[in-house]
């Protein structure tokens, strides 16, 4: 009997056990998954919760209901991995041996890593995150009570989970205050450590224009040093100051603490991983999927989904000493809510940045790329159903794992030079 052990039962871990249970024979392979929580949260919904789109119970389901028959679930905290012994130690003293290990323990916001941010005088009073259920719930109340002043939306440091979410939050806040008839009493500022609104030039330009159109000011290259709690002001490394009445921040994101305790991560607890086949750089029987790795792709469910599709095919070959046939290209596909029941869609990979054009999709498509449309908004809302019923269970979704250029408008050399000159 061989043991496959999966650490983490979020989107990546759940998809892995579903895909692999179908591919690995029950009589020769045992599959076990460990997670400290029994509840699975639909994380994309957390962005919309502060605006009243969802109630918390619409975003939570039991993790166990997504595991197929023949998968053992252990609810426990992980103490550490010992790759020399091929063992995982749990906090409660149990030990689990493995032949192959999949690390899918994700990334989480750490407000305590920025001086002043988690100070009880401001945390969940005037400073909020929205990537946690507690944060999104608390923020809903704070937004409701907010009638005038300065709203600052802020990213601490890249990489972060779902890198477009802070921009979406900003667009949604603009539409929300407009709808309440108080937009003229609210100043909105978007503060980022990046050079512009987003990481990639074409998207950054489009999204930057959208900020401008909505009279949202952009404070770029802002690397936070600390928050002055009394003055309610963020101070940057080069001593710039941004004051706020309400701060919606994305705290520093870090991988799980057991990664650090095991000595297998980088300075942000991400595991060094091959970006094409997800094999750990160091250990030949450890794979890393989803947000837990250091691959230069978006930390997002869509990336995890495409990655797991390729990985599960590769894994069967790998354990049978055959070459891994599929090479991941960094494909990501994200809906961006822009407010007023509209949204954008971006589709990109390691080499190709998000471009304009159309995204072919059977039945409902094509969807416009990098352009606001009602269809994209519907796509975003429909995704919750797809996530619970198709994606997590490893069922077929008609979007190819590797990115396609079909429908995309390529950037000319001249355009590229113009964009660079503006940066």
């Amino acid at each position, binding site marked *: 009997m061989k043991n496959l052990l999966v650490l983490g039962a979020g989107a990546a871990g759940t998809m892995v056990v579903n895909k692999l249970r179908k591919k690995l024979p029950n009589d020769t392979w045992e599959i076990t998954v460990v997670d400290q929580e029994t509840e699975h949260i639909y994380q994309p919904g957390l962005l919309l919760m502060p605006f009243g789109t969802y109630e918390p119970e619409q975003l939570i389901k039991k993790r166990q209901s997504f595991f197929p028959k023949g998968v053992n679930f252990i609810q426990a905290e992980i103490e550490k991995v010992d790759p020399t012994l091929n063992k995982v130690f749990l906090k409660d003293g149990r030990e689990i041996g493995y032949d192959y290990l999949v690390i899918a323990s994700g990334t989480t916001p750490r407000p305590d890593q920025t001086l002043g941010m988690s100070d009880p005088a401001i945390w969940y009073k005037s400073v909020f995150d929205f990537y946690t259920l507690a944060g999104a719930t608390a923020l809903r109340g704070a937004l409701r009570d907010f009638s005038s002043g300065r709203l600052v939306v802020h990213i601490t440091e*890249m990489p972060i989970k779902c890198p477009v979410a802070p921009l979406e939050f900003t667009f949604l806040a603009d539409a929300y205050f407009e709808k309440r008839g108080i937009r003229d009493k609210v100043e909105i500022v978007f503060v980022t450590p990046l050079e512009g609104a987003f*990481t*990639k030039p074409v998207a950054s330009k489009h999204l930057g224009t959208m900020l401008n159109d909505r009279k949202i000011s952009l404070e770029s290259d802002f*690397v936070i*040093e600390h928050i002055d709690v009394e003055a309610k002001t963020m101070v940057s490394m080069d001593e710039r100051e941004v004051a706020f009445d309400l701060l919606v921040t994305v705290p520093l994101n870090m991988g799980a603490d057991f990664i650090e305790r095991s000595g297998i991560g980088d300075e942000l607890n991400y595991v060094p991983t091959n970006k094409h086949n997800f094999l750990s750089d160091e250990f030949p029987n450890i794979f890393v999927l989803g947000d837990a790795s250091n691959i230069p792709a*978006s930390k997002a469910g869509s990336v995890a989904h495409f990655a797991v599709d390729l990985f599960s095919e590769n894994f069967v070959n790998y354990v049978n000493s055959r070459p891994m046939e599929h090479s991941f290209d960094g494909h990501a596909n994200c809906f961006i809510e822009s407010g007023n029941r509209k949204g954008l869609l971006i589709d990109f990979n390691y080499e190709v940045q998000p471009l304009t054009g159309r995204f072919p999709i059977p039945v409902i498509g094509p969807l416009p790329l990098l352009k606001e449309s009602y269809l994209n908004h519907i796509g975003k809302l429909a995704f919750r159903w797809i996530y619970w019923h198709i994606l997590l269970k490893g069922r077929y979704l008609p979007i190819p794992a590797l990115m396609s250029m079909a429908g995309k408008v390529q950037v000319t050399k001249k355009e590229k030079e113009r964009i*660079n000159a503006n940066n």
Partner: protein
Amino acid sequence: MPTIEIAGKQITVNEEGFMTVYDEWSDEIAKVLAAQVDIELTPRHWEVIHFLRDDFKKEGESSTSRHTQTVGGFPIKEQFELFPKKPAKKMSYIAGLPKPKGCV
């Protein structure tokens, strides 16, 4: 890839002017690149640059500000003092390394 002449040598750069060939770099070239972004190199600047060059050789990619702080021992605040406004970008530019990946 375009080439430009610096300190009497032809060097290969990308569209944004970042050098693309590790071994074409030299101290002389670094001084010219630094001057282009209004930086005069002090011994402390050179310590950072040499860390970045060595680290790139080891890791195969340009160091982020955090990595330069944690592994190299150069606090981010000091990186801002030495290479004002956009330290990660300027450090890679002068050290002849690719622009660090704006992680997506």
